[in-house]
Protein backbone atom coordinates (compact mmCIF):
# COMPACT_ATOMS: atom_id res chain seq x y z
CA UNK A 1 0.00 0.00 0.00
CA UNK A 2 1.13 3.51 -0.69
CA UNK A 3 2.28 5.52 2.29
CA UNK A 4 4.22 8.62 3.22
CA UNK A 5 6.38 8.96 6.31
CA UNK A 6 7.57 12.19 7.82
CA UNK A 7 9.79 11.12 10.68
CA UNK A 8 10.11 14.54 12.30
CA UNK A 9 7.01 15.72 14.15
CA UNK A 10 8.45 19.09 15.16
CA UNK A 11 11.59 20.93 14.10
CA UNK A 12 12.94 24.23 15.37
CA UNK A 13 15.55 26.17 13.44
CA UNK A 14 17.02 29.61 13.85
CA UNK A 15 16.03 32.34 11.45
CA UNK A 16 18.54 32.45 8.62
CA UNK A 17 19.59 28.85 9.12
CA UNK A 18 19.16 26.14 6.52
CA UNK A 19 16.29 23.68 6.66
CA UNK A 20 15.72 20.13 5.57
CA UNK A 21 12.44 18.31 6.18
CA UNK A 22 12.49 14.60 5.59
CA UNK A 23 9.97 12.58 3.65
CA UNK A 24 9.99 8.92 2.68
CA UNK A 25 7.39 7.27 0.54
CA UNK A 26 6.29 3.77 -0.28
CA UNK A 27 4.96 3.38 -3.80
CA UNK A 28 5.17 0.68 -6.43
CA UNK A 29 5.59 2.78 -9.54
CA UNK A 30 7.02 6.18 -10.34
CA UNK A 31 5.51 8.44 -7.72
CA UNK A 32 4.03 11.86 -8.16
CA UNK A 33 5.20 13.74 -5.09
CA UNK A 34 4.16 17.00 -3.47
CA UNK A 35 4.98 19.27 -0.59
CA UNK A 36 2.24 21.40 0.90
CA UNK A 37 2.42 24.07 3.58
CA UNK A 38 -0.37 24.92 6.01
CA UNK A 39 -0.41 27.92 8.30
CA UNK A 40 -2.56 27.64 11.46
CA UNK A 41 -6.25 27.58 10.60
CA UNK A 42 -5.54 27.91 6.91
CA UNK A 43 -5.82 25.73 3.84
CA UNK A 44 -3.16 23.83 1.95
CA UNK A 45 -0.74 25.67 -0.30
CA UNK A 46 1.29 23.72 -2.82
CA UNK A 47 5.00 24.44 -2.48
CA UNK A 48 6.29 22.18 -5.24
CA UNK A 49 5.67 18.95 -7.09
CA UNK A 50 7.63 16.21 -8.82
CA UNK A 51 6.15 14.28 -11.70
CA UNK A 52 9.17 13.32 -13.82
CA UNK A 53 12.42 14.65 -15.24
CA UNK A 54 14.91 16.64 -13.21
CA UNK A 55 15.04 15.18 -9.72
CA UNK A 56 15.72 18.56 -8.13
CA UNK A 57 12.57 20.64 -8.25
CA UNK A 58 12.19 24.27 -7.38
CA UNK A 59 9.12 25.62 -5.69
CA UNK A 60 7.69 28.81 -4.34
CA UNK A 61 9.06 30.81 -1.42
CA UNK A 62 12.63 29.63 -2.10
CA UNK A 63 11.95 25.95 -1.36
CA UNK A 64 13.35 23.04 -3.29
CA UNK A 65 13.10 19.27 -3.01
CA UNK A 66 15.12 16.40 -4.34
CA UNK A 67 13.65 13.10 -5.47
CA UNK A 68 15.93 10.16 -4.69
CA UNK A 69 14.49 6.93 -5.98
CA UNK A 70 17.20 4.78 -4.39
CA UNK A 71 16.27 6.14 -0.96
CA UNK A 72 12.53 6.53 -1.60
CA UNK A 73 12.90 10.06 -0.35
CA UNK A 74 11.69 13.50 -1.31
CA UNK A 75 13.23 15.88 1.22
CA UNK A 76 12.33 19.54 1.29
CA UNK A 77 15.08 22.12 1.67
CA UNK A 78 15.51 25.83 2.05
CA UNK A 79 18.92 27.52 2.37
CA UNK A 80 17.80 30.28 4.73
CA UNK A 81 14.51 30.26 6.62
CA UNK A 82 12.45 33.29 7.48
CA UNK A 83 10.14 33.71 10.48
CA UNK A 84 7.19 33.57 8.07
CA UNK A 85 8.12 29.98 7.19
CA UNK A 86 6.79 28.77 10.54
CA UNK A 87 3.95 26.41 9.61
CA UNK A 88 3.02 22.76 9.18
CA UNK A 89 4.55 21.01 6.18
CA UNK A 90 3.01 17.98 4.55
CA UNK A 91 4.65 15.63 2.09
CA UNK A 92 2.22 13.75 -0.14
CA UNK A 93 2.09 11.18 -2.92
CA UNK A 94 -0.46 11.00 -5.70
CA UNK A 95 -1.58 7.39 -5.68
CA UNK A 96 -2.49 5.25 -8.65
CA UNK A 97 -6.17 5.75 -7.85
CA UNK A 98 -5.71 9.52 -8.16
CA UNK A 99 -6.24 10.32 -4.50
CA UNK A 100 -3.49 12.05 -2.58
CA UNK A 101 -1.97 10.36 0.44
CA UNK A 102 -0.51 12.75 2.98
CA UNK A 103 2.19 12.28 5.56
CA UNK A 104 1.52 13.15 9.15
CA UNK A 105 3.22 16.52 8.83
CA UNK A 106 6.20 18.31 10.32
CA UNK A 107 5.63 21.42 12.37
CA UNK A 108 8.33 24.01 11.77
CA UNK A 109 9.12 26.61 14.42
CA UNK A 110 11.56 29.45 13.85
CA UNK A 111 13.83 30.65 16.62
CA UNK A 112 14.43 34.43 16.43
Amino acid sequence: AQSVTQPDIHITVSEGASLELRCNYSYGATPYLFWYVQSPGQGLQLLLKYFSGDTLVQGIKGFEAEFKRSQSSFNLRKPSVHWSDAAEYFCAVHSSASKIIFGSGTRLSIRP
Partner: protein
Amino acid sequence: EPEVTQTPSHQVTQMGQEVILRCVPISNHLYFYWYRQILGQKVEFLVSFYNNEISEKSEIFDDQFSVERPDGSNFTLKIRSTKLEDSAMYFCASLQSGSLNEQFFGPGTRLTVL
Protein backbone atom coordinates in the same frame (compact mmCIF):
# COMPACT_ATOMS: atom_id res chain seq x y z
CA GLU B 1 -6.44 32.79 -11.34
CA PRO B 2 -9.24 30.24 -10.98
CA GLU B 3 -9.64 28.72 -7.55
CA VAL B 4 -11.72 26.23 -5.62
CA THR B 5 -14.13 27.88 -3.20
CA GLN B 6 -15.89 26.41 -0.20
CA THR B 7 -18.80 27.55 1.91
CA PRO B 8 -19.31 28.06 4.74
CA SER B 9 -15.86 28.71 6.16
CA HIS B 10 -17.07 27.56 9.59
CA GLN B 11 -20.11 25.46 10.46
CA VAL B 12 -21.28 24.73 13.97
CA THR B 13 -23.92 22.05 14.44
CA GLN B 14 -25.49 19.90 17.11
CA MET B 15 -24.76 16.19 17.26
CA GLY B 16 -27.27 14.25 15.19
CA GLN B 17 -28.00 17.10 12.80
CA GLU B 18 -27.43 16.95 9.06
CA VAL B 19 -24.87 19.24 7.47
CA ILE B 20 -24.07 20.02 3.87
CA LEU B 21 -20.68 21.39 2.97
CA ARG B 22 -20.45 23.13 -0.37
CA CYS B 23 -17.66 23.44 -2.86
CA VAL B 24 -17.36 25.11 -6.24
CA PRO B 25 -14.54 23.41 -8.14
CA ILE B 26 -12.61 25.06 -10.94
CA SER B 27 -14.92 25.21 -13.93
CA ASN B 28 -13.15 22.95 -16.45
CA HIS B 29 -12.13 20.33 -13.91
CA LEU B 30 -13.54 16.84 -14.12
CA TYR B 31 -12.42 15.08 -10.94
CA PHE B 32 -13.55 16.11 -7.49
CA TYR B 33 -12.45 15.12 -4.01
CA TRP B 34 -13.19 15.57 -0.35
CA TYR B 35 -10.54 15.29 2.33
CA ARG B 36 -10.74 15.91 6.05
CA GLN B 37 -8.25 16.93 8.70
CA ILE B 38 -9.02 16.37 12.35
CA LEU B 39 -7.36 19.03 14.47
CA GLY B 40 -3.67 18.35 14.84
CA GLN B 41 -3.71 15.35 12.52
CA LYS B 42 -2.89 14.69 8.91
CA VAL B 43 -5.13 15.25 5.92
CA GLU B 44 -7.12 12.11 5.04
CA PHE B 45 -8.80 11.18 1.79
CA LEU B 46 -12.56 10.69 1.98
CA VAL B 47 -13.92 10.30 -1.53
CA SER B 48 -13.28 10.94 -5.20
CA PHE B 49 -15.98 11.67 -7.77
CA TYR B 50 -15.88 11.52 -11.54
CA ASN B 51 -18.53 11.41 -14.24
CA ASN B 52 -21.30 11.82 -11.67
CA GLU B 53 -20.34 8.86 -9.58
CA ILE B 54 -18.03 7.94 -6.76
CA SER B 55 -14.80 6.50 -8.12
CA GLU B 56 -13.19 5.70 -4.80
CA LYS B 57 -13.97 6.11 -1.11
CA SER B 58 -12.08 5.49 2.08
CA GLU B 59 -13.23 3.49 5.09
CA ILE B 60 -14.06 6.79 6.76
CA PHE B 61 -16.71 7.48 4.13
CA ASP B 62 -19.50 5.34 5.59
CA ASP B 63 -23.26 5.44 5.04
CA GLN B 64 -23.52 8.71 6.94
CA PHE B 65 -21.67 10.48 4.15
CA SER B 66 -22.81 11.24 0.64
CA VAL B 67 -21.63 13.45 -2.20
CA GLU B 68 -23.47 15.09 -5.01
CA ARG B 69 -22.93 17.40 -7.93
CA PRO B 70 -26.44 18.79 -8.12
CA ASP B 71 -26.15 21.46 -10.76
CA GLY B 72 -22.92 21.09 -12.71
CA SER B 73 -21.04 23.65 -10.67
CA ASN B 74 -21.43 22.79 -6.99
CA PHE B 75 -19.99 19.69 -5.35
CA THR B 76 -21.45 18.91 -1.95
CA LEU B 77 -20.61 16.67 0.98
CA LYS B 78 -23.53 15.70 3.20
CA ILE B 79 -23.22 14.19 6.64
CA ARG B 80 -26.63 12.82 7.61
CA SER B 81 -26.33 12.56 11.37
CA THR B 82 -23.23 14.25 12.69
CA LYS B 83 -21.14 12.81 15.48
CA LEU B 84 -18.67 14.55 17.75
CA GLU B 85 -15.82 12.84 15.91
CA ASP B 86 -16.90 14.44 12.63
CA SER B 87 -15.48 17.73 13.91
CA ALA B 88 -12.68 18.52 11.49
CA MET B 89 -11.57 20.72 8.64
CA TYR B 90 -13.02 19.49 5.36
CA PHE B 91 -11.17 20.27 2.15
CA CYS B 92 -12.57 20.04 -1.32
CA ALA B 93 -10.21 19.57 -4.28
CA SER B 94 -10.57 19.36 -8.03
CA LEU B 95 -8.38 18.12 -10.84
CA GLN B 96 -8.60 18.90 -14.52
CA SER B 97 -7.98 15.52 -16.10
CA GLY B 98 -5.50 12.68 -16.03
CA SER B 99 -3.07 11.81 -13.31
CA LEU B 100 -0.33 14.22 -14.36
CA ASN B 101 -2.18 17.21 -13.13
CA GLU B 102 -2.26 18.85 -9.77
CA GLN B 103 -5.25 18.73 -7.45
CA PHE B 104 -6.28 22.22 -6.44
CA PHE B 105 -7.52 22.56 -2.88
CA GLY B 106 -10.13 24.88 -1.48
CA PRO B 107 -9.60 26.84 1.74
CA GLY B 108 -11.60 24.36 3.80
CA THR B 109 -14.71 24.34 5.97
CA ARG B 110 -14.21 23.96 9.68
CA LEU B 111 -17.00 21.77 11.06
CA THR B 112 -17.63 21.83 14.79
CA VAL B 113 -20.08 19.30 16.20
CA LEU B 114 -21.32 20.06 19.71
